[in-house]
């Protein structure tokens, strides 16, 4: 089980702020996870359609799409940040 958390319009489009899923053994990288999520339904495809803009954090650290998920226990997906 791995915890997924969503923010801003990613959260709104998926329709939930967090969930726990079982990661298939075939999924080892962030981009593999994004592809896997798109198969979970229309709302995921809508949220992740331009997946290149989606930012990812593994255990609270910014990560690239080609990063290995490794032992991360929390993965966050969100749009580019607009703080400050």
């Amino acid at each position: 089980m791995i915890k997924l958390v969503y923010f801003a319009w990613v959260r709104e489009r998926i329709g939930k702020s967090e969930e726990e899923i079982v990661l298939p053994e075939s999924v080892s990288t962030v981009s593999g996870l994004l592809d896997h999520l798109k198969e979970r339904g229309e709302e995921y495809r809508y949220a992740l359609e331009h997946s290149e803009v989606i930012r990812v954090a593994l255990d609270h650290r910014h990560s690239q799409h080609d990063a290995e998920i490794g032992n991360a226990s929390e993965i966050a997906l969100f749009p580019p940040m607009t703080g400050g």
Partner: protein
Amino acid sequence: MIATVLVQSEDFDIAAEIQKLTAGDRDVGAVVTFTGVCRDEAGKLSALELEHYPGMAEQEIERIAKQAGKRWPLTGLIAIHRFGRIRPGENIVLVVAASKHRHAAFEAASFMMDFMKSRAPFWKKEIFLDGTEGGWVDARTKDDDALDRWSEE
């Protein structure tokens, strides 16, 4: 140098924060503050709703503060970022950098803001006066470009 990082819904008191970095430290010669304020977007905006990623927001700002502390000889650094509903004229973010000399304080404060804009996990949604949601504020490529000037050769 110990940096103070706060992520909170309440407003902050700039004078009190400056005081924390100068009181009792007689080696401070320069204090620079940056305050980010909510604009009203030509009178259309009712409020900004600021969403954040609890836990990561603090950690990411702490990582940025640590970098600033390594890069400039600071005597103190404070960064406060608010979340929740913020109305035009209200404060959003505060950075206070103290140093012996002015250029270190100016550069560290500017560096903090550039990185907080593009790397701290906060998202702004606009709420207009007519009750409609203006949607999520788009990230500006200008803000990403602003990071380039800090890349060390």
